[in-house]
């Protein structure tokens, strides 16, 4: 429709006819059979859209550049990871101006742009705000086999939720609002999987 409407106003009559012919072929490709597409194309002497393949050799240049990356964790997150690795504890930081508590910690408060030097230890418990069960495999970004449970956990004492995986639970047992707790890994290496996962804890639905 777009082509015809615009064409009627802006292009000469011969081009309008041409647009109409092309339009018919496109419509036939969409709605009709291959045979009546050919018939239509032959009738209007319009070349099929795939005819260019007869004229050229289709080439695709395959390439792969290996660019190594390493990401500096930075002062704020380093402190968080070290506390997690060495003490098995989850900490948050608090804005000195508005009092909002962030976990994972922030460099500056989103709202106040204040330095976040005020650290608080969290108990490691909280509620499952929402979740989903992932049934497909994403081998490039996610080494674990499906089904995987993605959880959004609001920890006690924090104002923001944190994303992580859920464990020790069957998908059908999950409930939005259920109490959960962090399970720390036994061998910790200062990365996000020092928290192995969150699991349901005593207290049931909050």
């Amino acid at each position, binding site marked *: 429709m777009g082509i015809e409407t615009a064409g009627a106003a802006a292009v000469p009559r011969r081009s309008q006819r041409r647009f109409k012919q092309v339009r018919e072929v496109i419509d036939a490709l969409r709605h009709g059979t291959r045979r009546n597409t050919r018939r239509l194309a032959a009738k209007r002497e319009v070349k099929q859209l795939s005819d260019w393949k007869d004229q050229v050799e289709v080439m695709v240049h395959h390439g792969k550049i290996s660019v190594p990356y390493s990401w500096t964790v*930075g002062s704020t997150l380093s402190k968080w990871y070290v506390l997690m690795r060495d003490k098995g504890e989850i900490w948050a930081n608090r804005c000195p101006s508005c009092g909002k508590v962030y976990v994972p910690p922030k460099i500056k408060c989103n709202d106040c742009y204040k330095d976040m030097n005020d650290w608080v230890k969290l108990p490691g418990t909280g509620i499952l705000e929402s979740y989903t069960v992932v049934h497909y495999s994403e081998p490039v970004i996610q080494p674990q086999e499906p089904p995987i449970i993605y959880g959004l956990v609001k920890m006690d004492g924090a104002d923001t939720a944190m994303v992580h995986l859920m464990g020790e639970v069957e998908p059908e047992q999950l409930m939005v609002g259920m109490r959960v707790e962090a399970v720390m890994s036994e061998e910790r290496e200062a990365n996000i999987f020092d928290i192995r996962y969150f699991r349901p804890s005593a207290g049931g639905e909050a």
Partner: protein
Amino acid sequence: MGKRVGIIGVGQTHHAAKRLDASGVELIAEAVTRALDDAQLTIKDIDAVVIGNMDHFENINYVDMWAADGLGSCMKPVFKVTTGGTTGTTVGACGYYHAASGLFDVVMAVGWEKNSESDTQAAISTCANPTLERDSFAGAIGPLATEYSMYMKAYGATEEDAARVAARDRNNACNNPFAHIRQHVTVEEVLASPMLSYPIKFLDMCPRSDGACAVIFAVEEKAKRLCPRPAWVHCSVVRHDYTHFGDLEWTWMPTLERATAEAYRLAGIHDPLKELDVCELYLPASTCGVKWMDSCWFCEKGGAPELIRKGTFEMDGELPINPSGGVISCNPIGATALIRVGEAAWQIMGRAGDRQVEGAKKAMATGFGGCSWSDVFILGADLP
């Protein structure tokens, strides 16, 4: 014509080869905090934010999203722009356009890079056509070396002329506390340094650095109220070209020639060598500090070597270039061109410390990027 706009604050990190103490977001926060302090503003005074860095360099491609806390952009209009090496001047230009449009009063432009997190040459090579030129001419050093070979042949410039520029910029950097490399060198040391790609040697070439820079633009009425001596933007000009490397005119620098000509026209400058007081030019290699002087209209074509041998562009010369030490002393790529604008602004504002050119009233800053693109800012102490 847009509204008149002044720069009222500049902030930059202390740059280094590897800032292992800071993440990219923390570098951004360091520059933004310093720019706000320089302008004596808080984040609440900023109406819009523009940010940019090099595509591919850190493998995190939505800096406008994931750097929001360090950038201070939560619930503000924020725009990411990236144009290769010129990214810094492009974010500066966009900051200026935002304010000049009359739609935003105070706009912050931020450029940053953490080169230590990647392979700079591999990432930079992604600027070239992958099915045609990437394998045979990509990277930063080879093309710059090729163009200077042509200039030497055409006009009798020498490797020593480039070495003089390298020594000038590197020695100037010793007066700049923010520069990545601060080391006195002699012309002989430059000439004796290892060959990278003839005729460019190790000490002729820029390093790769970690760092960030932030520049705050304000419309006339706000700038006058907030800053005792704003650096007024007289013009911002952008000229890009390139389809294939071989299409370029390598003996001179058409984009810089056109961009500076237009900038001088807009700023009412007839004799740039006499009328400009200081320049902060994006010279990625010392060889550019010879060849590109022609394209800045400081002399006739081929006249640059003579000016350099006379010391025209030294700190005590007729037109000091790169008091900060320039790009060969400090190169956090997405920030590099914005640092030129920020340093030029500080010269006008009288805040350049030990590298201050006394009484600077008109300054030019340029950006260079890939491939062969040029951006120009002219700043002044007087209203345009």
